[in-house]
C-alpha cells in the first residue's frame, strides 16, 4: 500500500471516538480502522457470474432503478385517510449526496395529485397589476430560464420530535419531509414586471390547480427577490407529485408556500388569511399567542447514517454522514458529537456549498462498541446556530407543531442499533 499514514490523525478530537475531519481532507485512513481487514486471510474466491457471460437486456425509454433497490421508496401511512392526502416521505437513510432523486422527493398534498394536461394549464397574474396576464406552459417556456439547487422542507417536518417521549421512528419517519432538486424555470420577478404591479401591492396570493386549490399569501418582496416559476426538476419536467406542469419555488421558505400546480397569482395589499396560513402553519407558543407567517426554515441538520435500521455490524471505523441546510443562507459549519453533545468536532463539508441548499457533511468515527449518542449541530452564514432541544423548548414550548429544527439524537447501543432519543 502506498497510502500515507498519519498516526496523529487516529487520535480522537472529540469524545467517544470522533476523529479529525482531516482524515477526509488529506485522503488518509487511520491505521486502526483498516487493521481488522488486513489481518485476515483471503476474503473469498471470486466467481464468474452469469451476467458476466451473457448479454443483458436492451434499452428502455425511461431508466428505472435496479430491482434490487426496490426497498428504496417513499414511505407514507396506509388508509383510512383519502388517497393522496397527507405526505409521503423521502428515505433519507438510503440516499447519499445532496440531490433527492425526483421519484423520491417527499410530497405533501391536500387533495391528491391532479392529472394536469399541460396544454390546458394556465397561469394567471391579476389583482393590483396594470396588465392582467395569462400564460400557457408553452409561453412560459419561451422566457430565459434560470436553474438553482434548493431544498424544500415541509413546515411540519420533524414534528414527531414535539412528542414528550421520544418515539421509535427512523430518519424518514421523523425528518423525511425535506428534499432537494435542481429547479429550473422563469424568475417570478420577470413575469410580475411584465404585468406591472400597482404601488399599493404588498402580497401575492399563490394558488394551485389541484382540487383543494391550495393557496398561500407571499410577501411581494420575496416574489421579486429569488422566487422561481419552475418547469423543470432535476433536468426533466417537474414531477406530478411536485407540481407538474408549473410550481412555485421560494428558496428557503416553508414548503407549503412553494405552491404546486400553480395556476394563479393575485397581487393584493394584505394577506388573504387562508386556511393554511391561519389554522395551519402557525406556531402556538408556550403562552396563548401563536407566531403567524413564519417564513424561513431555520438552520438545521440531521444525521442520516448511522440511523435507525442501519446496524453497525462490529466496532471500528464508520463515517457519520448527514445533511445540513438553512433557509436563511449557506451552511458555514457542522459539528458532530458522539457523546450526546458534551464534546464536538467539526465535520467535513462536501461542496458545493450553496445558499438555501442542503450540504452533505461527513465525520470520521471510531466506534468502540459501547453506547454512544450521535448528534449534529449546524451553523449558517448569518451566524445562527441550530438550537439544542432544551433551547428550542425554552423559546417556544412543544405545542408549536411546525418548524422543529432542534438538534436530534441517535443512540447507538452495544448491538450497534440506532434509535431516536432525546439527549
Amino acid at each position: 500500500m502506498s497510502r500515507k499514514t498519519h498516526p496523529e490523525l487516529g487520535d480522537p478530537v472529540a469524545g467517544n471516538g470522533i476523529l479529525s475531519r482531516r482524515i477526509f481532507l488529506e485522503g488518509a485512513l487511520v491505521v486502526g480502522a483498516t487493521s481488522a481487514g488486513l489481518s485476515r486471510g483471503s476474503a473469498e474466491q471470486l466467481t464468474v457470474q452469469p451476467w458476466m457471460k451473457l448479454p443483458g437486456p436492451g434499452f428502455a425509454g425511461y431508466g428505472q432503478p435496479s430491482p434490487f433497490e426496490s426497498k428504496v421508496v417513499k414511505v407514507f401511512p396506509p388508509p383510512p385517510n383519502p388517497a393522496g392526502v397527507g405526505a409521503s416521505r423521502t428515505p433519507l437513510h438510503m440516499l447519499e449526496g445532496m440531490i433527492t432523486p425526483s421519484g423520491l422527493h417527499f410530497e405533501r398534498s391536500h387533495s391528491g395529485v391532479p392529472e394536469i394536461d399541460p396544454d390546458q394549464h394556465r397561469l394567471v397574474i391579476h389583482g393590483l397589476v396594470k396588465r392582467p396576464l395569462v400564460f400557457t406552459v408553452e409561453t412560459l417556456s419561451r422566457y430565459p430560464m434560470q436553474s438553482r439547487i434548493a431544498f424544500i422542507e415541509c413546515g411540519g417536518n420533524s414534528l414527531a420530535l414535539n412528542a414528550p417521549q421520544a418515539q421509535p421512528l427512523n430518519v424518514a419517519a421523523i425528518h423525511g419531509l425535506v428534499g432537494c432538486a435542481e429547479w429550473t424555470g422563469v424568475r417570478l420577478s420577470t413575469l410580475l414586471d411584465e404585468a406591472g404591479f400597482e404601488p399599493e401591492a404588498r402580497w401575492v396570493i399563490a394558488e394551485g390547480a389541484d382540487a383543494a386549490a391550495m393557496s398561500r399569501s407571499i410577501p411581494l418582496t420575496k416574489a421579486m427577490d429569488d422566487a422561481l416559476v419552475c418547469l423543470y426538476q432535476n433536468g426533466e419536467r417537474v414531477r406530478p407529485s411536485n407540481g407538474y406542469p408549473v410550481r412555485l419555488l421560494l428558496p428557503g421558505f416553508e414548503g407549503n408556500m412553494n405552491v404546486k400546480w400553480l395556476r394563479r397569482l393575485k397581487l393584493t395589499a394584505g394577506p388573504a388569511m387562508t386556511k393554511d396560513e391561519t389554522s395551519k402553519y402557525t406556531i402556538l407558543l408556550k403562552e396563548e399567542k401563536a407566531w403567524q407567517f413564519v417564513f424561513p426554515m431555520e438552520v438545521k441538520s440531521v444525521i442520516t447514517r448511522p440511523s435507525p435500521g442501519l446496524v453497525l455490524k462490529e466496532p471500528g471505523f464508520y463515517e457519520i454522514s448527514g445533511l445540513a441546510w438553512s433557509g436563511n443562507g449557506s451552511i458555514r459549519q457542522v459539528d458532530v458529537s458522539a457523546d450526546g453533545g458534551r464534546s464536538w468536532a467539526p465535520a467535513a463539508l462536501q461542496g458545493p456549498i450553496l445558499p438555501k441548499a442542503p450540504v452533505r457533511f461527513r465525520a470520521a468515527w471510531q466506534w468502540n462498541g459501547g453506547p454512544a449518542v450521535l448528534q449534529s449541530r449546524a451553523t449558517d452564514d448569518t451566524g445562527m446556530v441550530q438550537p439544542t432541544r432544551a433551547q428550542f423548548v425554552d423559546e417556544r414550548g412543544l405545542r408549536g407543531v411546525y418548524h422543529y429544527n432542534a438538534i436530534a439524537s441517535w443512540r447507538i447501543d452495544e448491538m450497534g442499533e440506532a434509535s431516536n432519543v432525546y439527549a
Partner: protein
Amino acid sequence: MSTLKAIAVSITTLTIAPAAVAQAQQFGQPIAPADIAAWDISIGPDGAGLPPGRGTAIEGEAIYVAKCQACHGEKGISPSVALAGALAGGMGTLAPGKTPIKTVGSFWPYATTLFDYIRRAMPFQESKSLTADEVYAVSAYILNLNGIIGSNDVIDAQSLPKVKMPNRDGFIPFPRNPK
C-alpha cells in the same frame, strides 16, 4: 471612404441597437377580469371577493349533515378522518400548559377564511360544487356550532367579515423573518 465607413457604422448601430434593447420578453397574453372570474376565488379578511348570497345555521345544518358530516363528524366535534380535524370545541385549550385543540371556534382568527376554504376545497370529493348560498349557510352552521353566532343570524358578504372570532388577537409576527 472613411466618411462612408463612418456612416455605415452608424447605420448599423442605429438599426441593431434599438432592436436588441426592445426585445424584452413579453409573452403574457392580456386577460379581462370577467374571464378570470371563475378562478378568482380568494376572499380577503375584510370580505373582499365575497359574492352575493346568504345563509343561516339552520339552513346550513342540512347541508352539513349531507355533505360534511361523514368526515368531520356530528356537530364537527369528532372527525372520523383524522386530517379533517375538529371544527368545533376546544375553547380555552390554548391556555399555557394545556394540550391545544385548534378548531374554527378556538383558533381561527377570521370567519372569512371559512367561506374561502369551503368554497375552494370542500366537500372533499366534489370541491367547488356548493352554491354561494350553501357556502354561506355551512359557514354559519360551523360558526353556530362554536356558539359564535345565533342559529337564525344571516351570514352574507356584509355580516361575515364583521364576525368577531374568539382568537382574533391570538397571533403575533414571527420575529426572525427576512427583512
